[in-house]
């Protein structure tokens, strides 16, 4: 192979981008060969998204140039990027929910029949054909909002392929996928690369980088810290490059000293959004001073369990006892006041009020209490003092506590939620997917906080789709399958494969 001689599919040189005083990209170089799968790795806020947004024309670089097949191009809008055969699969899908798959894919570049009418049949046939060719089958007539997330992602990829993208950028594509869907996606990407499509792949998951990437570029604080062949490194090596220090992927923790039962769930039955049974005669006890991990493939009742305990969803029957007191039927506020903290699965939707300030979000569960409010009047000084204290203690990176919470990066948002929930005087901590989609440094920090909570005598109920997280943090593990716990035992009594079988089939 003489890839050295061939022009690079995409080359970015000396890219600089500032947002106010923040330097998001500082002299960034990126070289992507034709047919290469190029992983872009880095902590949240390292500048990866800024870089790909520049490549896709969503941001304009202050300095530097982008070359496609050796030729310098100007990127002023996504339209320019599309014309230069660059496609992007966004982290938050850019799809119109109420339109059909076909309509979403052809939008902006529609085939028309005589008379200017949209030729839907022709478009649908083309979509179907593309899907078959790349292993991305999806019903061209389905309405996008009815599709599962994994299929919506297929639509996003197909939209770029429909425009014959030579370079495909994927921004954290696996964050929303189940393990099976992830495997399938990786296969599809390998197939695309084999056909000569260059792929830029942003991820936090080191394992995926090692599994698929031909080359990995690591960014830290807006700069490229290195570019390497993943075969020459390992998870620890990559993690260290990312955060600039060695990372403890295993959490250091002492033996648990469980005490009295805090949370006791008996024969709980809960329905999901479509009124189908989600939890069936579900029973569970969580003790003081332990981390109880719930392992399971997503969609087996985990979400409904968390919502039932926190009062966001009402139970059909059964009881939820907190320190022996019946909580089912209580409001979310009453439950929170009883001493339950909740790190919700969906931080944007249930964890934060995006447009409100970081400070207000940090006291969201206590704003009505003294000293944050006095006779219904909010006490700004007390709120700001507490917020400044928490921002420092939890290392939340924000320019000001008065900035809207939505402007923070994912990891920092999660730190705000953790700071709020962990400083709430609680006996039970519910942590649902606490590290989903955040960077390694923040994951490490959150994990340590969960262990600290346990050691101070809080009962921790951890729900996570990451088996590694469950295994490294939990003292006891329960495997959930179709709304029931099919196995409960201390962590050391399980093997990884055993849990895997229980998760997927309900028995080992």
């Amino acid at each position, binding site marked *: 192979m003489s890839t050295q001689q061939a022009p690079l599919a995409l080359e970015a040189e000396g890219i600089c981008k500032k947002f106010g005083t923040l330097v998001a990209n500082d002299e960034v170089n990126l070289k992507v060969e034709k047919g290469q799968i190029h992983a872009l790795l880095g902590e949240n806020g390292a500048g990866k998204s800024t870089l790909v947004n520049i490549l896709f024309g969503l941001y304009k670089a202050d300095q530097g140039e982008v070359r496609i097949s050796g030729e310098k191009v100007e990127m002023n809008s*996504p339209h320019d990027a599309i014309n230069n055969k660059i496609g992007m699969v966004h982290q938050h899908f*850019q799809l119109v929910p109420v339109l059909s798959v076909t309509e979403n894919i052809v939008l902006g570049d529609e085939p028309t029949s005589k008379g200017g009418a949209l030729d839907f049949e022709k478009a649908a046939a083309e979509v179907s054909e593309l899907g078959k060719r790349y292993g991305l089958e999806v019903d061209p007539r389905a309405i996008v909002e009815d599709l599962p997330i994994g299929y919506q992602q297929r639509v996003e990829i197909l939209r770029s392929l429909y425009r014959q993208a030579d370079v495909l950028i994927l921004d954290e594509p696996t964050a929303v996928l189940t393990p099976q869907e992830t495997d399938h996606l990786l296969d599809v990407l390998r197939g695309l690369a084999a056909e000569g499509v260059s792929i830029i792949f942003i991820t936090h998951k080191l394992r995926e980088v090692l599994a698929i990437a031909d080359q990995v570029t690591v960014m830290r604080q807006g700069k490229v810290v290195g570019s390497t062949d993943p075969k020459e490194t390992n998870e620890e090596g990559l993690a260290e490059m990312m955060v600039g220090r060695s990372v403890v992927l295993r959490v250091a923790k002492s033996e648990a000293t469980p005490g009295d039962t805090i949370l006791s769930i008996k024969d709980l039955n809960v329905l999901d959004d479509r009124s189908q049974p989600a939890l069936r005669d579900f029973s569970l006890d969580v003790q003081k001073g332990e981390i109880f991990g719930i392992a399971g493939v997503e969609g087996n009742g985990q979400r409904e369990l968390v919502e039932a305990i926190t009062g966001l969803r009402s139970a059909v029957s059964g009881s939820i006892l907190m320190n022996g007191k019946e909580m089912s039927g209580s409001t979310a506020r009453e439950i929170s006041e009883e001493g339950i903290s909740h790190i919700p699965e969906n931080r944007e939707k249930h964890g934060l009020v995006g447009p409100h300030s970081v400070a207000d979000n940090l006291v969201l569960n206590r704003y009505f209490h003294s000293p944050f409010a006095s006779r219904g009047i909010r006490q700004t000084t007390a709120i700001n003092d507490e917020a400044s204290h928490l921002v420092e203690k939890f290392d939340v990176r924000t320019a000001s506590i008065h900035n809207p919470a939505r402007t923070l990066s994912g990891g920092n948002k999660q730190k705000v939620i953790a700071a709020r929930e962990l400083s709430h005087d609680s006996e039970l901590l519910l942590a649902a997917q606490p590290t989903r989609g955040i960077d390694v440094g923040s994951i490490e920090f959150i994990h340590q906080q969960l262990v600290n909570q346990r050691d101070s005598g809080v009962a921790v109920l951890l729900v996570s789709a990451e088996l590694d997280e469950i295994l490294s943090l939990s003292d006891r593990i329960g495997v959930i399958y179709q709304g029931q716990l099919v196995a409960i035992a201390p962590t050391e009594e399980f093997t990884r494969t055993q849990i895997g079988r229980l998760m997927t089939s309900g028995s080992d």
Partner: protein
Amino acid sequence: MNSLLQRIIRLRWWILTFLGIIAFTIFAGDFRLDPTTAIFAATLRHSTPLVLGALCGMLCERSGVINIGIEGQMLMSAFVGFSVTSTTSSLYLGVAAGLACGMLMGAALGGLTVSLQGDQIIAGTVLNIAALGLTSFLYTPGETIHSKTPRIDIGPLADIPVIGTIFFSNQPLTYFSLLLVGIIWYALFKTTWGLRTRAIGEHPSAAETVGVSVAKMRYLNLIIGGGIAGLAGAYLSLEAVGSFERNMTNGKGFVALAVMIFGRWNPVGAWGAALLFGYTNAIQTQFQFRGWLTGHPQFIGMIPFIVTIVVLAGFVGKARAPAAIGQPYTRE
């Protein structure tokens, strides 16, 4: 055959309502053919400005802009159309002026909401207040026009009993509004323009990332929509009444919004809804004629508004508005 039966079962409430209305109309018409036919013919005429207003609102909202200024667009256009006809004695010029005035008002709404990124509700309110103030100030009482737009019989079709009188013996803008229902339906759901319009009303940034200009599409829709509202205004002063009066729209622009919602942002649905509202107006006249509720005329006048409230309270929950309406769009 089976599917036809299923369709009938699914639409049973609509069919029953429709039959009920016919039965009631025959009763109100004292079981005579002429008054019954007259009620239905009046229904179509009363529904014309409503369906035009609703089509205007639909084009705007489908593209993501709430237009509560339909009332103002209609009123201003009614005035301009009337004034032009009164000066030039030409009905065609009057209608054209109404159309142009509506388009200008649409462009103005675009300037406020798309270019200046202003609040859409406030922008619409500005149009309403401006139109009411300006027309009241500029209007000279006593101005007249010689005739209204002429009634056109469509050949032998107009001779068919009942149906002919209702559908094929109308004035030009009434015919045109029926035609527009079909045109807008086809445009919205079958053409590239319609797909892009619906996309920017639901998820503008998705459309922008594939190279559709949100600003351009919104302006286009607001201007076309404004033109349609202008025709509704011209209908009122040049086709229905034949003169201009202060605040002659009298809330029709707002009822048109209710019609649009009831019709679920679909032109055909809106036409059906407009007929229902038109009917409530048409039946009033018959109530007065028959001497019903004469002791309490205010109750008769209330009928359209009561229907509006009932319909909106009962059906809005089931209808889903375009997701992005009300939000100014800025590129990141």
